[in-house]
């Protein structure tokens, strides 16, 4: 049975994401930061590091989220000279774009590392009882300590999101979790507005399907007797 919060707003648009920032002084702050004012850039960091951390956390998991967030701001500082305002929210858009690119690069790097170093995720493990499915630690999942800090809803969302393809995860993170408007999300991803809407629709459908599976699995786990695990955890 889904929590009550699911039943509340089915027929009305849902608001999501962190509260909007006060952008009135953003142009001045960015200009001062471009002149080398560390304090001004620090204020911009304070304003956006939660959002950037959220995107990186959703895309890449908690392990590297801190490092990646720091790297994103270092990149932004290095590239600040090339930044040009194209509207009031454009610094945030620009920062989001850097974050999205960094997250995608990190996912690619992990994929390459798995190809080069790690065992194939598809290959079963031979045991005395026959071949069993391999279980690997998921880098995008929080550790038990991190999971304890999350709410139940956060944990569910994170688990279902990690079952999706990165493209779907990305648009849902930007639009539904971070609350970006379609126009801004389209600028972040550099795609036409219609394309973004289609992607969001497909991603929501995929999320709904995976959420249904997740709920069924949870119910089966609750009702079924605890099975004896035949899988082995690779080292």
């Amino acid at each position, binding site marked *: 049975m889904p929590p009550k919060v699911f039943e509340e707003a089915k027929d009305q648009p849902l608001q999501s994401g962190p509260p909007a920032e006060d952008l009135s002084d953003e142009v001045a702050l960015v200009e001062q930061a471009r002149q080398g004012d*560390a304090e001004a850039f620090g204020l911009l960091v304070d304003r956006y590091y939660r959002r950037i951390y959220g995107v990186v956390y959703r895309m890449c998991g908690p392990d590297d989220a801190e490092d990646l*967030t720091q790297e994103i701001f270092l990149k932004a500082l290095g590239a600040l000279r090339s930044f040009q305002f194209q509207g009031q929210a454009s610094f945030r858009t620009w920062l989001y774009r850097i974050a999205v690119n960094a997250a995608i690069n990190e996912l690619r790097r992990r994929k390459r590392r798995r190809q080069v170093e790690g065992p194939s995720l598809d290959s079963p493990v031979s045991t005395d009882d026959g071949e069993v499915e391999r279980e690997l630690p998921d880098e995008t999942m929080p550790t038990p300590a991190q999971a304890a800090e999350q709410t139940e809803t956060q944990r569910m969302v994170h688990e279902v999101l990690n079952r999706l393809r990165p493209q779907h995860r990305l648009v849902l993170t930007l639009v539904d979790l971070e609350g970006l408007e379609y126009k801004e999300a389209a600028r972040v991803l550099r795609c036409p507005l219609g394309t973004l809407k289609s992607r969001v629709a497909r991603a929501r459908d995929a999320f709904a399907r995976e959420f249904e599976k997740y709920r069924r699995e949870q119910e089966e786990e609750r009702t079924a007797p605890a099975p004896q695990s035949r899988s082995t955890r690779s080292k």
Partner: protein
Amino acid sequence: MAFFTRNNCIRMRRLLNQRLDGELSPADRDLLETHLSNCPACAAWADRLATATSLLRAAAPIEPPSHLSARIKAALATGLADPRRVGGTRSSVRSFSPTFVRLATAGALAVLALVLVTALRDQTVPPVPVSPLSPAPVVERLAVSPPAEALPAPPAPIAPSPRVATATPTTSRAVTTSAPSRPVARRSAPRRVIRTPATPTPPPPPRAGEAPSGDRAEPSDASRAATATQLAMARQRISVAPTTRPVNSGSAFTNHVVGSLVADIMLTAYLDGAPPGMALTPTAAEGDF
């Protein structure tokens, strides 16, 4: 019942997403409500989608660790002090993809092979005028064919292609045949004959049955036999006494292999006409331009 057609359901599911974003027009909203009240499958899907989306939006933002802001500012301060670190990456060692490494290796090997082949060719090409049977590279022979008088009794003519003649017009007319005259072969279209306007080319040694320039000459059986014999002798000469050639490579085996290859190519070209891609004689198609 238009309500339950597949296309209609697909369209209604698009409208469901618009409803989630609050972008549904009143007319579409009525249409959607009517459809949902008549289509149980879409109604169930609408419930699942709304539940999943509301779950997404109900998730509180991820709260970063409390020390993260200070950590970023410290890194930025270090970066400001040392501009080389600004914009740097976490890992100093960049990892290349396996595909990139494979491609780069293949490219490097290809360049190495090209350099080796070029060097080998330079070493195996004799610097003196050679007979048509010599193992000089075919490309070089095509580009600059030797003067007709320098050829010691060539066994058979090799008509240069018009393109080759264009590149070296002075040698364009050195096309003869020693075979008994056979009528001009297949002249399907007027051909471009490049003539040397000012300096007439010295005539080749008198031979019977000289064919007009640019025409395809077909050797007789006797000529083919003679050519084959001479080629065999040339190949034997190359393989037996490679040291008599002014080649300083010191690789008799290489000379033998290259010489045999070139002799085979020339024999094939002469007996069978120009093979594809190596037009020693103009083909009908090439003659049309």
